[in-house]
């Protein structure tokens, strides 16, 4: 059974339909990429799943239970934990204390929570920043802090909202390596990503959103050849040109 099931989720802001009857599933132990151009409704969908926004219609199931309409802290406690695209460090707290807040989630005592926090800091390469106030970090480090903090809650499903945006290519490589390691530890991942190239090599499945509608869903190599997806990303003109090229190739 799927770990996460999104069923016909619609979210409106007034007249604007940000998500229109979106459905997909995330199987346990996999990495699922949620991609789409700017304004496709990826973050909105994320906010619905994590309980930050109520859905206008539709239902969401996690780990065998319905989570539609639950407050976000309860969804987090069930094991579906997210990061934020616009990083939200707890500014006046140190990096260590930020991660410690996450580590306290499952009723862990102080000593155990501190061990968990420390190991998450090591995993994310943050140990050297442990005593720094989180508000003073450079952006790349803040992104890793988002990840470390979510990881410290020992999630079943980790939902990453554009953790790679704004990073240098070396940092992206490091992030991808980190994500692979997280999966190895049995964590399921749902990753929103704007950069298609970053997500394709690591995802088991990709869901494409455009204009609030699910455009396609499937394995990465299938998605990267899907014409609707190419059109959505590159525009109709490029898509036609690409099609023409392919046509020539098949004719030749």
């Amino acid at each position, binding site marked *: 059974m799927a770990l996460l099931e999104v069923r016909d989720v619609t979210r409106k802001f007034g007249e604007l339909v940000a998500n229109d009857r979106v459905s997909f599933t995330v199987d346990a132990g996999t990495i699922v990429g949620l991609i789409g151009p700017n304004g496709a409704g990826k973050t909105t969908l994320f906010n619905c799943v*994590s309980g*930050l926004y109520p859905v206008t219609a539709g239902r969401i199931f996690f780990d065998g239970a319905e989570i539609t309409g639950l*407050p*976000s*802290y309860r969804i*987090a*406690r069930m094991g579906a*934990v*997210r990061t*934020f695209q616009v990083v*939200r*460090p*707890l*500014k*006046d*707290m140190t990096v260590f*204390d930020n991660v*410690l*807040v*996450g580590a*306290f*989630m499952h009723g862990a*005592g*102080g*000593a155990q*929570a*501190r061990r968990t926090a420390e190991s998450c800091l090591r995993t994310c390469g943050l140990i050297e920043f442990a005593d720094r106030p989180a508000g003073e970090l450079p952006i790349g480090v803040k992104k890793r802090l988002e990840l470390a*903090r*979510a990881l410290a*809650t020992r999630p079943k499903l980790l939902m990453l909202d554009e953790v790679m945006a704004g990073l240098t290519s070396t940092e992206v490589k490091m992030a991808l390596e980190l994500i692979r390691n997280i999966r190895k530890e049995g964590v399921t991942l749902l990753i929103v990503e704007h950069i298609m190239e970053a997500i394709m090599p690591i995802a088991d499945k990709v869901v494409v959103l455009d204009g609030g509608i699910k455009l396609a869903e499937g394995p990465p190599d299938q998605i990267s050849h899907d014409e609707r997806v190419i059109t959505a990303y590159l525009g109709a003109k490029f898509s036609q040109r690409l099609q023409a090229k392919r046509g020539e190739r098949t004719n030749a």
Partner: protein
Amino acid sequence: MNHNMLKRKDLFWLALVALMALVPAVSAITANSFLMHVLILILLYACMAQAWNIIGGYGGQTSFGHSVFFGIGAYGAGMAVVTFGLSPWPGILIGMLAAAVVAVLISYPCFKLSGHYFAIATFAVVEIFNRMFMVWYWVGGALGLDYPMVEEGLKNLMWYDSKTGYYYCALVLFVLIFGIVRFLEGHRFGYYLRAVREGQETAESLGVNSTAVKLAAMALSAALAGLCGAFFVQYNLRVDPGMVMSLDMSMKFVLVTILGGAGTLVGPLLGAAVLIPLQEYTRALWGGLGGGVDLIIFGFLIIVIIIRQPAGITGIVRDIAKRFRRRPADEKGGASLGTA
């Protein structure tokens, strides 16, 4: 759990408490009744500020309603003694409990408001309670409650001749309230509270029930403010609505904490140690000049401190410590950038 065990900082606090416990042994101090009065007030206001600090500093919810909880605690003790002729102790407990319940009832709707709106709503609450107690006969109305002459001692929490008894009571109060906050600082609840202050949505995304955390902090903060109020009434031997439930009193909770450094353990003590002598001595020295000259000077000094360092006296102390630590490095570099 070694993080929560004694650290060097805690040794500083223990030494400080030991030192304060020895103060009444110095007869030069006990002989000076006004000095004893100032010392007691410093301890009391440090406790009040620390109680406020739980929700206002660590929790980041600026409450101007704490004089209400302070007042409820004061009336709890006052009514036990004056109305029912009992020892103040049962009244203190009931007062604390009532303060916590009222705090939760008030805050639950007010926490739906954020930032400044929360602060404004708590302002209104003070006025409501002030008027209500003014016209409420059962609690003494506008005239308030005047203590009868009863036997002095710990049972009645009352002393007539010397202030030493009150001083030790204030010290116990200080150890209790500062101890509670020190304990919270190192535990999950304290971390959650700070996380809610720094970002409610972020905290919730990490499994923190922010409403429950804020309500619990408010209840604890109010109960301790009530306890301070009970001490206040035992010290003054009378209470009326204007003495305790006023915006003036509410401002003291906020000012002392912010001036000392909100969200830090030492802040409320520093704030009280600077503000209270300032308040009492400016009043003693210039109160006779009329026209509130003492209050003008008092207000002026607050403005100066806040402009110099928004983090309060704690921030000023930290800056000075930093400068001392940096100095050797600067000298090595040979370049002195500072204005000599």
